């Protein structure tokens, strides 16, 4: 079937999630059964049916270009685990 343990590991790494071996196998099984379930849709005739982009059936919701108050710096940083000189501090990247 489509999803192997290797795929699960790859998807987990993209999502930055650590899984143990038992979880990897369990997720592989579950992914496959989900895909199996969705396969039932392949049996439907969708000839002439417009694709659905969105489920609420609403278009064009806008706001005007008006400035509203922002948060004070200490509010913005309140939940940050690490900060320095008014900045959020994060791990080195690349």
């Amino acid at each position, binding site marked *: 079937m489509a999803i192997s343990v290797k795929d699960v590991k790859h998807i987990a790494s993209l999502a930055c999630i650590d899984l143990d071996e038992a979880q990897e196998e369990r997720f592989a099984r579950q992914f496959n059964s989900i895909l199996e379930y969705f396969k039932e849709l392949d049996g439907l005739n969708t000839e002439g049916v417009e694709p659905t982009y969105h489920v609420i059936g609403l*278009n064009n919701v806008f706001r005007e270009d008006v400035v509203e*108050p922002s948060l004070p*710096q200490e509010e913005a940083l309140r939940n940050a685990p690490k900060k320095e000189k008014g900045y959020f*501090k*994060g791990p080195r*990247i690349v």
Partner: protein
Amino acid sequence: MSDVIIGLEVHCQLNKLNSKLFCGCSTRQQGLEPNVMTCPVCLGLPGALPVINKKAVEYAIMVGLALNCKIAEHTQFYRKNYYYPDLPRGFQITQYDYPIAFDGVLTVDTDGEERPIRIRRVHMEEDPGRLVHQGSIETSKFVLVDYNRSGMPLLEVVTEPDLRSPKEARRFINKLRNILEYLDVFDGSLEGALRVDANVSLKGGARVEIKNISSYKGVERALLFEISRQQNMRRRGIRVVQETRHYDDERNCTITLRTKEQAEEYRYYPEPDLVPLAVKSWESELKGRLPELPDAKRERFKRQYGISDSHAKVLTAEIRVANYYERVAERCDPRMAATWVADYLKGELNYRDRDIRDAFPPEKMVYILEQLSNGTITDKGAVEVIRALLDEGGDPKDIILARNLAKVETDITRAAVAEVLKENQAAIMDYKAGKAQAFNYLVGMVMKKTGGRADPAEVNLLLRESLECT
């Protein structure tokens, strides 16, 4: 360089908007403390809901139209997922399928030849935050993040791989910038307003993406560096691998970020918090609101002012230069104004690496040209006034007085000619013996004696008269 293939992705901040793309935080953030222009939406706090800025959509359509694009019937947003500290939510709201504008074209002047560069798409997205590295990007241990920029409205303009040289790429970007400024949706002088990713390859070779070029001049430099790197590898028989490289402006080189094997998988999916847009019906009204664009203005200038194509081109490239010229031309001889604005003023500004905004007001230029027309100052004097105004400021009238630039009276010139003739018998003999340089020497001596303020044409005339009569 004919085997060079370049495609560009140009990110332009719509920094003339008042508020960000999906929230009411202000877009004015130059010189601010970090993290003072944020809210739950642009900080990505749980439960916060984005709502799109209507004017940003109008601007995007106007840009699309100015780039001769088609406007989409249906357009919508996606989440582009990746982990990077500049994204507070772990995804960027951007467009994927169904960009707002697509299939356009922009012609670029390449050494006298107008070449069409195809525009693949123009789409809207939010700017990520700004990262401050301590030390260089390679060695820094951690990053500091400022989310003031997070959620700034961006347009990404993507070209087809139609550009053939770094110079052409620079010209494309300049023209794009100028058009955005004509539309008044963008101020290119603000830091970080325009950032470029470039795809470069040599014919038959792998494609390398250079990320994050953040200055206009950096584009040409980064491309030149990368092309010579690829050419050197080819010469030495080394295969160029497909990869993403980062441009380091200070050291002028590109460095590896990631190779194809670790290529990003963004897992795009439709943004459920934003409803789709159906805005093609705005097209005709917005088309009516488009200002006269550079190419049209260039034609009008030629027609209306009778100036040359090359002058019209220089004068219409930037909207501010065009407006400046028109304010001078309506009060002076338009052809004279064209020469003095396009050649002299622009030349002096370029030499100083300055913008027309840093020049003196057009009224002062009008005054200078009036003094030139009525014979008070010479061309050389006019140039000196322009230089003094640019370097020290002040009033042209005072500068002409203080520097003694007013042309000397004819009788003073006449006296100088007489003196020079008295003092330079040898040169007169040479002249009479048919040596043309001797005449130029005498003209030079008169100019020297009058401190360069004599009118050269008059000096010529007076000298010739005197020499013929003796």
